[in-house]
């Protein structure tokens, strides 16, 4: 009979943890998509062999401590300002790989100006945008991307479009700007989605290294704590309610908008 030690061999290895993730225990709630999103970004950096050239920018929000988990040089930015921080790092080091990792409140509310102008200038950086439609870290308040009718602690009866305004499709918005080369919306709720999201992130970094302009990957994700649902229910709710409003797939490729019903 085969012993366990006979199985644990290099040739049988189907999965390993990237050394670019630290051993620190993730501060995210069980079931949250952030951990997976972190991992695929770090796997791409490892696979590209660019750890020594990479500088990551952490936001304010749930992923404010991204530098505790991403085992690379990182800069923690003020709320919403990550694209400005990344702009300057990249301008001073045009050959380095620079990315921001931001949530919806950070990127699409307080940092809207920095997001739009970095995209419009066509900075050769990559923005990874986690959209869970809520301010998770501060306890589940309404975000710019909170969809109609969605209940949060500051829209306790559901988002009312008349009084609270419309959810902002900032990804479609930045896709309109001449400075963006690749804009995609992905998810990490199933293994297949994770593989697609990783391919999109890989493509984004490849394009950055070719100096073709800003690359932007949105990951529609869950916030089971903020949504007050179990992790499984949260993912089901996301598929049923978020994806129709935030459809997955590439929005802009090679600087050209992809023709879909949503554009």
């Amino acid at each position, binding site marked *: 009979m085969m012993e366990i030690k006979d199985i644990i061999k290099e040739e049988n290895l189907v999965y390993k943890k990237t050394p670019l993730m630290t051993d620190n225990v993730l501060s995210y709630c069980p079931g949250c998509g952030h951990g997976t999103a972190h991992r695929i970004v770090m796997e791409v950096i490892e696979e590209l062999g660019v750890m020594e050239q990479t500088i990551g920018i952490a936001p304010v929000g749930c992923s404010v401590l991204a*530098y505790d988990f991403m085992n690379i040089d990182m800069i923690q930015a003020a709320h919403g300002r990550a694209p400005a921080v990344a702009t*300057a790092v990249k301008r001073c080091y045009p050959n380095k790989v620079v990315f921001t990792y931001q949530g919806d409140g950070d990127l699409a509310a307080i940092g809207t100006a920095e997001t739009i*102008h970095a995209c419009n200038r066509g900075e050769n950086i990559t923005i990874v945008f986690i959209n869970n439609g809520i301010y998770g870290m501060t306890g589940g308040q309404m975000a710019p991307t909170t969809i109609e009718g969605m209940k949060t602690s500051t829209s306790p009866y559901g988002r009312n479009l008349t009084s609270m305004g419309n959810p902002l499709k900032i990804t479609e918005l930045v896709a309109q700007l001449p400075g963006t080369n690749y804009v995609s919306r992905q998810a990490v709720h199933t293994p297949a989605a994770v593989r697609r999201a990783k391919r999109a992130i890989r493509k984004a970094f490849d394009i950055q290294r070719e100096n073709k302009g800003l690359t932007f990957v949105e990951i529609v994700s869950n916030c089971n704590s903020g949504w007050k649902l179990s992790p499984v229910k949260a993912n089901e709710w996301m598929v049923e309610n978020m994806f129709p409003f935030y459809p997955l797939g590439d929005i802009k490729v090679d600087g050209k908008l992809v023709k879909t019903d949503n554009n």
Partner: protein
Amino acid sequence: MGELKLMKGNEAIAEAAIREGVDGYFGYPITPQSEVLEYLMMEKPEERTGMVVLQAESELAAINMVYGAAAAGKKIFTSSSSPGISLYQEGISYIAGAELPCVIANVVRGGPGLGTIQPSQADYFQTVKGGGHGDYRLFTLAPASVQEMADFIELGFEIAFKYRNPVMILSDGMIGQMMEKVELKEQKPRWTDEEVIKLNGSWAAIGRPATRERNIITSLDLDSLKMEAHNHHLQEKYRRMEAEEVRYETFQTEDAEYLMVAYGSSARIAQKSLVLARAKGIKVGLLRPITLFPFPSKALKELAPRLKGILSVEMSAGQMVEDIRLAVEGLVKVEHFGRYGGIIHSPEEVLQALENQIIGG
């Protein structure tokens, strides 16, 4: 002798930044300092030295660009004027908290609010007391001439990197706009990437080689005990600045019965008032703080016992006067005089204030 030129203060500081080998300037137009960005763009610094110059979409973006490039170990300069510097405050607090070196120039205009575009010195409190949140200090240099606008770039970066602390050059619309003869320094080469790693590689986020742990630039620690320890470290740094970096100059204080204290533009005006007063037989001296933080408190305290009165001359409603009073600990009467809201006092007005508030008062 270096190259001599007739320049505006704003142009001189920009030219000095290029010659210092500054790696990047990030700014946003605002009167009365827009010439800094205009001069840099006109000079094509990307061709002269490879310096990056970028007009940001806002002051918020500009100061965070400074934060980013400084976090990556580069020599970074920015400038703005009062309302813009108010917008910088959040970023400056982060820069101080994360201990990043950089030089920021404030070409002060009258306030509050949108105020006016004329010169003022009413940003003293904002600068030396910490305009942003938290316990931090900005090392503050106060130029009184176009020459010092240029010279304080080199000195500012020396101190910024020595202490890993932001340095403020607190100028005003008069120094920024007036033209004077300025002697420029020789062009320094910018640091190569290898030099940046050698000088700043122990802390800067410039990409992690396999041979070291990752470098993290942050001002955050959710563990309050660690944050208190970090604050202790910052305070120790500020005390070291107070012990080692105070700069000031004195004029005719040897036999002085009265003293004027003034910095920047007001010091230039007070020098003329001093001549007028001496001609009338008034034994008055002048102390010009060159560093506003650290403040020359010790020098003032030493002078205080033999003085009959001190007049603080500032283009504000009276801000530095509070630091003078703290320094002399009640040993001598201290009064304030100054026009403000964009008005520059005349030497005669200062002399009159000296006679009315100090000598006759």
